[in-house]
């Protein structure tokens, strides 16, 4: 099956007072129909910028896609005019944001906020739009939709607000839904409900989902495949089983080790990754993770690692894949990572 969305070698930079920030430095990934891709990484690794680039929603004055292609059904989104892009936003690709409290307009009724997208993209009457909005609220599990449509943001709970965000995003039946940290601001039980909702919607509509998160637990529940980002680059990508059971990049291993698991030995503490990500004003010459990596080599400091294809789906960028590195850390497999 061909790819619905294909991102190739995406570069995004921002102009700030302190200089140019290279937020995304050559990211590639692909997404098939009905598939869920998780983009994982710490705050500031460029995952949100990557997602927004697909929507072409990076701040127009400061941010710029400097290189790469974003192909939606073979159409390069980077080449579209803003007006053409607006036709696609909300109808072909939708996005939901982390904090529904601030991402919804507090002074406009929920119904109006759901309906304005439908009215924008489809030639239908308000009455029909209203019927669709009600149907949508039903789909995302909000009771009494007729009454709820007239209400305002502050009259809903946190989980309900996120459901409304999802309803707004799905109302025009887009092919791709991008969810930027959709559960981060929610309680754990509500998180689980929202993740279930994503799954059931995907089953019903066959929508493709890109989920941006730092939470490996969310990834495990939802994703078919994973791209791990660090300092603006994808360091490892592959199907979820291979990422979870056969991680190759020290950073992926670190992320997994820092996640609590039911089958863990409880006597062992969780292992955070020490240090902080590098300054993207001046990215290091070599591997960006080298400074925090327990297995860093001299080469990591000076040269960028190439991509190694472990299988046709599992890729990793790390010097440890080089045959010459095998002897430096002979005990690597025995360290328990």
């Amino acid at each position, binding site marked *: 099956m061909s790819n619905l969305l294909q991102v190739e070698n995406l570069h995004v930079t921002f102009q700030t007072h302190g200089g140019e920030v290279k937020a995304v430095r050559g990211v590639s990934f692909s997404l098939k129909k009905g598939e869920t891709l998780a983009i994982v990484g710490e705050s500031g690794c460029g995952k949100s910028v990557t997602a927004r680039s697909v929507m072409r929603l990076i701040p127009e004055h400061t941010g710029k896609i400097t290189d790469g292609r974003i192909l939606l059904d073979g159409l390069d989104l980077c080449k579209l005019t803003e007006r053409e892009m607006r036709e696609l936003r909300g109808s072909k690709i939708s996005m939901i944001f982390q904090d529904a409290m601030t991402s919804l307009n507090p002074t406009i009724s929920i119904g109006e906020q759901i309906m304005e997208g439908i009215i924008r993209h489809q030639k239908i009457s308000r009455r029909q739009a209203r019927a669709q909005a009600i149907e949508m609220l039903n789909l995302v599990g909000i009771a009494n939709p007729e009454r709820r449509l007239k209400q305002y943001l502050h009259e809903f709970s946190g989980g309900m607000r996120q459901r409304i965000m999802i309803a707004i995003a799905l109302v025009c039946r887009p092919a791709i839904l991008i969810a930027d940290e959709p559960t981060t601001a929610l309680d754990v039980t509500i998180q689980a409900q929202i993740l279930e909702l994503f799954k059931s919607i995907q089953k019903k509509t066959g929508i493709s989902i890109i989920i941006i998160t730092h939470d490996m637990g969310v990834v495990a529940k939802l994703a078919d495949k994973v791209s791990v980002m660090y300092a603006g680059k994808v360091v490892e990508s592959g199907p979820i089983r291979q990422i979870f059971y056969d991680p190759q990049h020290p950073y992926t291993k670190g992320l997994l080790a820092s996640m609590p698991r039911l089958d863990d030995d409880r006597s062992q503490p969780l292992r955070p990754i020490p240090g902080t990500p590098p*300054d993207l004003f*001046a990215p290091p010459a070599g591997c960006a993770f*080298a*400074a925090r990596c327990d297995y*860093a*080599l*001299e*080469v*990591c*400091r*000076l*040269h960028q690692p190439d991509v190694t294809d472990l299988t046709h789906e599992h890729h990793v960028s790390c*010097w440890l894949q*080089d045959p*010459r*590195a095998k002897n*430096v*850390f002979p005990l690597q497999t025995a360290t328990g990572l």
Partner: protein
Amino acid sequence: MAVSNDLFVQMNKEILHAEAIVRPKLSFWQGAWLRLRQNKLALGGMLIILVIAILALIGSSLTPYSYTEQKLLDSNQAPSAEHWFGTDELGRDVFARIWYGARISLFIGVMAALIDLCIGVIYGGLAGYLGGNTDNVMMRIADILYGIPYLLMVILLMVVMGPGLDTIIIALSATGWIGMARIVRGQVLQLKSSEYVLAARTLGAKVPYIIRKHLLPNTLGIIIVQVTFSVPTAIFAEAFLSFLGLGVQPPLASWGVMANDGIPSILSGHWWRLFFPAFFISLTMLAFNVLGDGLRDAFDPRQRR
């Protein structure tokens, strides 16, 4: 592959650490000063205030004329090498009077602001610190006072107390402190319930430490900004009172009095009699306002754009 085999050895992390750019840690005040220094407009305002203040002190000695000396033969002379800012209808040197007026206007502005500061900080601080019902009652009183139209009350007080330098300052600060009290009280309340103060106390921080590390940086900035804004408000109010004949009385002269005296000159063509006092009132207002804006941005980096 072009990469040398020699590089496949464990990395010496010392080098990396040495290469890392160390961003110096700035204290709150250093950070604020750094941000203020980058704001050219605010620096300009500060410079103007400084120059006006210096000239208020020494300006009158730059000319041989005194601010009271009347030379009826030299009345209404246009600005010249002799009288830099011209003379008024009584032949008094406008330059000398401007800097004398600067003293009076700045004195009124600064004194009113300082009194507002003292009353406001004590009242607001007490209300916030004591909290509960005391706070409720104190703030209800302040709310009601806040509802009273400021200038009306000032006019009323001036009518009753009679015009004069001291009465102006009293009248202006009689109602001017409420804004300050509200701000201080809000800050103290917010701080009392803030999690970082709770965290600091849990970690065993003593009260003086909390005051120095949390209370002062968080409230002092906002207080300084408020003071910066209340100086021009007082100067403006004084000009307004002068217009109503309730300003300082001769032989004292403030900018407000001079501007008011100069209004008829707009028709008689002696423009300098209105222009100079009006210009310096506006310039001072402007300088304090841009400085206040700059200080607010400098003290609250979160609100920066």
